[in-house]
């Protein structure tokens, strides 16, 4: 049998939020179509470092493993991306795994992204329906509008766009591209648009759309290819319009 190929991984570990991070290195047996999830599972099955030290399995967040739930975002070789779609064969070794840096670490690669969901709340990212009882059909929507809304609606709240944004950091409360994109999405919907004003009002609040400084990293890092820069621009346009008209005539 041919000699076994191995994979080298360096992982930034942290036992708890108040503990110091440290690095551990692992050497694992290579398998075809290996992704970062498989690496981490292999470590969990046999948590021994390269030096032979017995350690604990690496904590990480993952669920669907097909890049649609958004859970497994982390920094892989310095870049924010989803672990499930990060194929080992396409990564330079040693593979460096770190938690996202813009969110509080829970443990190891597991971070707390609840801030994003809180911000969705602030932006009123929903279509305010009267109730779930039967009120007939929804509004007619042109196929072209649906084709514009659908890609925006594929956001998986992974947080990669926040991770790569230089404007998102501990000195700023910028909500980030994902959230602003949702404002655009709901302002596009015929019923959602009835409450456009409230949403724009919120997105002009602290940490809102004005905090974007056009570095445009978000659109490059988005695993779903959402036109985030365009979304921010459109929200900007609507916001400024509302601001000026509100000021002049409001």
């Amino acid at each position, binding site marked *: 049998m041919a000699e076994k190929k191995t994979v080298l991984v360096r992982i930034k570990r942290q036992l708890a939020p108040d503990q110091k991070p440290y690095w551990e290195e692992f050497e694992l047996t290579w398998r075809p179509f290996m992704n970062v999830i498989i690496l981490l599972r292999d470590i969990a099955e046999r948590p021994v470092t390269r030096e032979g030290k017995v350690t604990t399995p690496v904590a990480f967040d993952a669920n669907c493993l097909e890049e649609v739930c958004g859970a497994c975002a982390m920094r892989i070789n310095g870049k924010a991306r989803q672990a499930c779609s990060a194929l080992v064969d396409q990564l330079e070794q040693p593979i460096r795994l770190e938690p996202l840096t813009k969110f509080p670490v829970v443990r190891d690669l597991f971070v707390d992204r609840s801030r994003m969901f809180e911000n969705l709340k602030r932006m009123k990212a929903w279509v305010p329906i009267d109730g*779930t009882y039967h009120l007939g059909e929804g509004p007619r929507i042109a196929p072209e509008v649906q084709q514009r809304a659908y890609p925006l609606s594929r956001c998986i709240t992974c947080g990669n766009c926040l991770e790569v944004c230089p404007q998102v950091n501990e000195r700023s409360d910028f909500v980030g591209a994902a959230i602003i994109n949702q404002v655009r999405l709901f302002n596009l919907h015929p019923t959602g648009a009835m409450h456009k004003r409230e949403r724009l009002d919120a997105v002009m609040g602290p940490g809102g759309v004005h905090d974007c400084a056009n570095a445009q990293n978000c659109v490059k890092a988005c695993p779903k290819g959402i036109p985030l820069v365009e979304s921010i621009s459109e929200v900007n346009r609507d916001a400024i319009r509302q601001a000026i008209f509100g000021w002049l005539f409001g």
Partner: protein
Amino acid sequence: MRQPKIIVVGGGLAGLMATIKVAEAGVPVELFSIVPVRRSHSVCAQGGINAAKNTKGEGDSTWKHFDDTIYGGDFLANQPLVKAMCEAAPAIIDLLDRMGVPFNRTPEGLLDFRRFGGTLYHRTAFAGATTGQQMLYALDEQVRRFEAEGKVRKYEGWTFLSAVLDEQGICRGICAMDLKSMQVRTFPADAAIFCTGGIGAIFGRSTNSVVCTGSAQSALFQQGVHYANGEFIQVHPTAIPGEDKFRLMSESARGEGGRVWVPRQPGDPRPPKSIPENERFYFLEEWYPKYGNLVPRDVAVRAIHKVVFELKLGVEGQPAVYLDVSHLPRELLDRKLEGILEIYEKFLGVDPREQPMKVFPAMHYTMGGLWIDDENQATNVPGIYAAGECDYHYHGANRLGANSLVSCIFGGMLAGPAAVRYARNLERGADAVPASVFEREQRRQEEINERLLRQEGNENPIAIWKEMGQWMTEHVTVVRYNKNLERTDQKLQELLERYRRINLSDRTKWSNQTLNFARELYNMLILARVITLGALRRNESRGAHYKPEFPERDDQNWLKTTRAIYDCGNIRFEYDPVDVSLIPPRPRRYDVK
């Protein structure tokens, strides 16, 4: 009047729908979910949601939807509630549409419908190829709105451990664990609705998400909730095999014109595109001319098994067949199927718009689940309700594609108000239950944690899980032999024995995923036995349950709902008659014209 409180466990489609219904009724809800609800497994549902809105002039009707569902499920489902579901489906679509789900549209701005398996009608509304995602988001947003109004409180990152039952065996709340601090806590409630989804992890690798372990259902089962039709496991015909999971390639690929084939010549080494039409074997179209590639999943899976294992015609000699959409126009593929084609491209580096995809069947769904009654989604334990994939009610022996999303929403819509009614009519609410009832349950659960963290042994939980998965996949999926089922149960008992000697590689008390997994593993092993024993006992072939030794459906003896009961550590079975009052059973044949 006393204000009741209701708990919902699970934040997928069913759980969110139930939450919305309860909140709408003005009753406070606490919603528990392992993952942020927006990451629930419903997000993976791809193809669409069925509703007979008959917008294509085909003469479709809710009765035909009902008939297709019952027939597709091989007459095992109790019929009245299924009929109610099919009748509710068009309004459900309208509701989702109003909530802003970006369903694909016709040029007139109406909802577009595609075809799906087990029907001859365009009955499936869809949002690209990520319909479940879009529906989940819409419901999540409605719940977020209630949350902002203070009507819903979410506990995300908590896992359900057990129900709190009082002396009379009435559910008075739940016991859950915070997955960060590992704190075990009880939460009183007047009723609890369980929407805890699938059980894929029992089969090791499946199309399911990581959280789909069935652990909650199993925990409830061990507390006395009955588990019905566990042996009916749906295997999906087209998935991409992977080391970590099987990634689903939606039936919608075939609904939009995708074709399944293998080269006629065994082990043909030629690249697929260079194989001429006449040397391709479109076996589904040949064997099932009327439904073609859109036969129900159990039928398609058995056909693929036959082609691969009996006729030895698997692609390049491997267990794989081609799912081919490369003949379809690119514009259509990008507009209607992008979400799934992107998955194939990302994970295998091959563009399915150019090359046929290599797929193979994989465990996908459980038709069985917590037993519920015929009207309220109520289990046999007072105060416990179930809805979504974790209930057993709607799909009989085989689920039709795009019916699961309807059943999730419909189940949630029934369970929420039913739980509210129950809670309001309770004579004595959870607040009147002595604290000792809650303390006892909390102590019991804490002790399990302490024991697991303390115990020394030589067994690895992941190894046990993998072994269980291999056995279950090999013997308790597509083709079942009694001898193998017996051996599998013995194996499971052996694994349970070994489980007592597991050694946790992580004994810390903060965000300890190993501990949580070990807890889930025990529950998975128990539920695996329910499935295996149920299959062993059912000596017939019906829907997804196929025994070559008993190849025919046997209505005489087995037109019955399996009901597994946990009795002092033993699993006992009872059988109930099926309500077939609306559509009398008839032979299920998809191969006739």
